[in-house]
């Protein structure tokens, strides 16, 4: 049995997306900038995809810019808002400590260019409040960028309340919705979102394609210079198969969002209840305001990479925030941000489900994961120090 429980990393493509893409590789392979009929067929597909993606987000087609993915969209949103702010002498940006690196590293770059960045601390449940955002806004704040839902611990942020306080104070609001798009209801107009990033491969679409939504009137700065594609804001021949596949996948995800979420939430809660029986472990992230497919635990006394490798041997594909899985000394910045000590953050396990996971798979995981945790603890000197009372349990 192979169980894929790493859908927050990437998803398997849906048949719908693949079949939507194929004609744009073999039949309508043209360049949308070409005047001939082969090119114009591609241009038509591009326009239809733009309309479809816009409709899924409650946006206007002109507000949709296709990018190479979530990272590029995050980069462009932040750089654009920074440039707009700098023109008015506003060079302060607010974000959180547990954003994706596409946001955090772009903010680091902005700092080197004279911007000041405030990273709000995150509560133990992985949620920032609108009040905290409001309190951090200054007269020179040009942008608030806060993720819709966290990629590691799944906590959903109070996006509407945050966007409201931003607009009361005349500040642009961007959200990295890479984990949310296709999984949670999004309407940029109702939720008053100025800019939003998403990535196709998180909802059964293809890799290498994403969207930057920017409300009309927000002038984007180019990250990639060149031709006049995407109204001159993103050069490079459009990835037509990718864009068409993304539009099809997003449409499908939004059409079945309610039943998919109900299915995943039931499996998620069963997994959480089962894994909570493992002693000296703890759920990371908020219990209620949580992505339907996200499960994230820390288990004391073990290290995440060895846990993942042994689970893989049992056919379970999962993920961890341990340092050893990243090639750096530091464990997940997200787990550290919610206050997990280093020792505990090394022993994290993330399972992320999609609508294709089954209850039988959940039962199998609940049967195997505790065994692997027990096995690794049996050879862990840290666990021995904890059980013998030499060290105090943290969880």
């Amino acid at each position: 049995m192979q169980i894929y429980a790493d859908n927050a990393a990437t998803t398997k493509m849906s048949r719908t997306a693949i079949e939507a893409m194929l004609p744009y590789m073999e039949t309508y392979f043209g360049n949308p900038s070409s005047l001939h009929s082969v090119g114009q067929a591609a241009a038509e597909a591009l326009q239809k995809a733009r309309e479809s993606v816009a409709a899924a987000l409650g946006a206007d087609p002109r507000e949709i810019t296709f990018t190479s993915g979530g990272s590029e969209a995050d980069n462009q949103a932040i750089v654009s808002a920074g440039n707009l702010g700098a023109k008015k002498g506003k060079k302060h940006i607010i974000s959180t400590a547990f954003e994706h690196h596409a946001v955090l590293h772009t903010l680091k770059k902005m700092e080197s260019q004279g911007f000041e960045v405030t990273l709000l601390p995150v509560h133990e449940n992985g949620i920032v409040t609108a009040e905290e955002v409001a309190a951090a806004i200054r007269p020179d704040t040009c942008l608030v960028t806060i993720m819709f839902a966290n990629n590691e611990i799944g906590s959903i942020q109070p996006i509407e309340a945050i966007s409201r306080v931003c607009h009361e104070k005349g500040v642009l609001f961007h959200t990295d919705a890479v984990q949310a798009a296709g999984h949670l209801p999004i309407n940029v107009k109702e939720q008053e979102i100025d800019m939003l990033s998403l990535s196709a491969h998180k909802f059964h679409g293809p890799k290498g394609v994403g969207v930057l939504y920017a409300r009309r009137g927000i002038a984007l700065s180019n990250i990639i210079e060149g031709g006049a594609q995407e109204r001159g804001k993103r050069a490079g021949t459009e990835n037509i198969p990718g864009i068409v596949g993304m539009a099809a996948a997003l449409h499908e995800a939004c059409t079945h969002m309610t039943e998919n979420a109900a299915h995943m939430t039931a499996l998620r809660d069963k997994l959480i209840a089962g894994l909570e029986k493992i002693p000296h472990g703890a759920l990371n992230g908020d219990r209620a305001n949580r992505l339907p497919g996200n499960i994230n635990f820390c288990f004391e006394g073990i290290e995440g990479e060895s846990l993942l490798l042994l689970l893989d041997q049992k056919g379970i594909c999962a993920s961890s925030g341990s340092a050893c899985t990243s090639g750096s000394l530091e464990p997940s910045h997200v787990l550290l941000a919610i206050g997990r000590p280093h020792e505990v953050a090394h022993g994290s396990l993330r399972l992320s489900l999609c609508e294709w996971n089954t209850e039988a798979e959940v039962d199998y995981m609940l049967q195997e994961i505790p065994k692997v945790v027990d096995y690794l603890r049996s050879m862990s000197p840290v666990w021995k120090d904890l059980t013998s009372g030499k060290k105090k349990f943290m969880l």
Partner: protein
Amino acid sequence: MALYSEKVMDHFTHPRNVGEIENADGVGQVGNAKCGDIMKIYLKIDNDVITDVKFNTFGCGSAIASSSMATEMIKGKPVSQALELTNKAVVEALDGLPAYKLHCSVLAEEAVKSALKDYYDKNNIAYDHSLFPNCEDCGYCEIKKEK
């Protein structure tokens, strides 16, 4: 290509010499839970020969495999030979480790040496202190920090 060699996976999934030795003649623990790796090695020594060795490790796959391999390489060997164990020899015996995992083999070498040092200390045997370098001196952590 897989992350680890078959040898590493074999020693990780079927680690040799896991456990503890009661009243061990030498015990050594190196590493730090904060950094994600701790190795503890227990030695039974008779007439200057390592007659038994066990380990406990908290860490990633390569840390467990390095501990397992290191214990296998010193079991039945005279203390003087065990002292010559190098991290390079452990890496070679494992058919290589990814560059950012080399520090695991350094930890294995140090854990063995730390247990041997404990044996010397317990038995008041004189030894050359330069044979036992500090964890901080290996350099791999520094390399990783720069990255």
